[in-house]
């Protein structure tokens, strides 16, 4: 049997930890008072939390007030002991015969309460049932057991509530940390962009400088998508669409595939690949003409060593394709493939450039 702590401080601390005072009614607590009133056949039942100067009702049936001054509290009398407090006639008990809730409206007569005892043994209030007529017979054994059981359920609910609050606090802190991290990363990327811009200012050939800037922005955009999911994963369609939006309006490309989540590395690799493909398409391929289009699709296929992720890039409607003579950095990135697997099939058919990339699904999803 737990020791009941009689001190105000312990009780007030415990109430503070539950962060429940003055919160709105909740069905789980309302259910408990309804069951208590029903089982004990009383018009009134309360979850009464005893604070320093008042008792506040988390749940109530049969009474309008949501709190009373501590001087009117019968519940406070029951906190000292881990047993039911039963007063068959409040007018006949010296502790309650002067209580204004007894001497005046609502003229309370019968009281039975089970203390609400926290897991660390602090009584914070009572689950009580009250009648407006005296009940010399008190409660049956069955009713007493039920009242005690329901009092324990009140604590279960309060603990559950507290766990959720703790969880929400952790989640909020994590969110804040993620925001801060994102912010710093974005600022660092902006600085890298600024440094490159200043350092390469005098370079006459602007193409490589612009290519660098575009790659940096593609990387930044892919990070945005990852950050929104707290770096855990990114949806394939967001990665593809986010990457394409930097290069072409929506009607110039179609992005279709199964709804799949990529890990951070897989997501960044895909974003950079899409960026290089789109850059080429805008410069030389189907997006260089006003009518050309790109179809991007992806799927998951069974492979020899488990499931495979397949990404296909198909250009059409552009100018006749010319096989590039020099392999630049962009082409090298493309031939590196998804997550560096080098499993790339390229086709420079006159109708349009096409490429198919493969990687183990597990690799695309790993952290």
């Amino acid at each position: 049997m737990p020791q009941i702590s009689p001190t105000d401080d312990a009780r007030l601390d415990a109430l503070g930890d539950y962060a429940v005072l003055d919160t709105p009614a909740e069905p789980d607590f309302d259910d408990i008072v309804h069951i208590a009133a029903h089982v004990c056949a009383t018009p009134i039942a309360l979850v009464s939390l005893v604070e320093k100067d008042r008792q506040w009702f988390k749940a109530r049936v049969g009474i309008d007030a949501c709190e009373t001054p501590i001087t009117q509290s019968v519940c406070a009398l029951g906190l000292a002991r881990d047993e039911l407090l039963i007063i068959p006639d409040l007018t006949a008990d010296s502790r309650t015969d002067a209580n204004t809730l007894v001497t005046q409206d609502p003229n309370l007569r019968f009281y039975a309460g089970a203390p609400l005892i926290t897991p660390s043994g602090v009584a914070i209030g009572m689950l009580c049932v009250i009648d407006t007529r005296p009940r010399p017979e008190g409660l049956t054994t069955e009713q007493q057991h039920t009242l005690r059981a329901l009092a324990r359920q009140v604590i279960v609910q309060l603990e559950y509530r507290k766990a959720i609050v703790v969880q929400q606090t952790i989640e909020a802190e994590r969110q804040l940390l993620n925001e801060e991290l994102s912010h710093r990363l974005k600022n660092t990327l902006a600085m890298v962009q600024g440094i490159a811009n200043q350092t390469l200012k005098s370079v006459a050939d602007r193409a490589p400088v612009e290519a660098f800037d575009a790659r940096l922005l593609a990387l930044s955009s892919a990070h945005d998508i990852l950050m929104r999911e707290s770096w855990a994963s990114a949806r394939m369609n967001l990665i593809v669409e986010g990457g394409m939006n930097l290069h072409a309006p929506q009607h110039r490309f179609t992005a279709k595939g199964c709804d799949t989540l990529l890990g951070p590395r897989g997501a960044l690799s895909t974003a950079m690949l899409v960026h290089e493909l789109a850059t080429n398409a805008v410069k030389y391929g189907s997006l260089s003409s006003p009518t050309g289009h790109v179809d991007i699709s992806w799927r998951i296929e069974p492979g020899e060593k488990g499931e495979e992720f397949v990404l296909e890039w198909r250009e059409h409607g552009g100018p006749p394709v010319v096989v590039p003579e020099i392999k630049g950095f962009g082409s090298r990135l493309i031939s590196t493939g998804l997550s560096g697997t080098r499993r790339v099939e390229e086709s420079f058919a006159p109708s349009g450039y096409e490429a198919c990339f493969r990687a183990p699904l597990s690799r695309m999803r790993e952290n």
Partner: protein
Amino acid sequence: MVGQDLSKRLKVLVVDDELFVRMMAIDVVSDAGHDPYEAGDADEAVEMLEAEPYDVVFTDIKMPGSIDGLGLAALIHQRWPQTHVIVTSGHLTLPDLPQDTVFLQKPYRTAALSERLHSIAG
């Protein structure tokens, strides 16, 4: 610059505590045919705004000093309503901004800034 002749040449105050980031913005402003001015934080920007009018203030959010870029945007909205404000930041979620304030997420496309200036210059 050719093509800028018909539109207004803007006085643009660039406010950022990061030197390289600020210098890049200044280059974008002058390449777009406008006149760049610079401040290292919002307090310095306020002093400059009190001394003479600017058409556009392009400001970062997170900066040292008594007010940040959001405070600066709000102050400009109140005290210098004629001045256009473009806010930039690495914030992932769009912050609460005064009406008509444009937001560019960092790192931004240089063209995005010059396009904004162009539409303000009309």
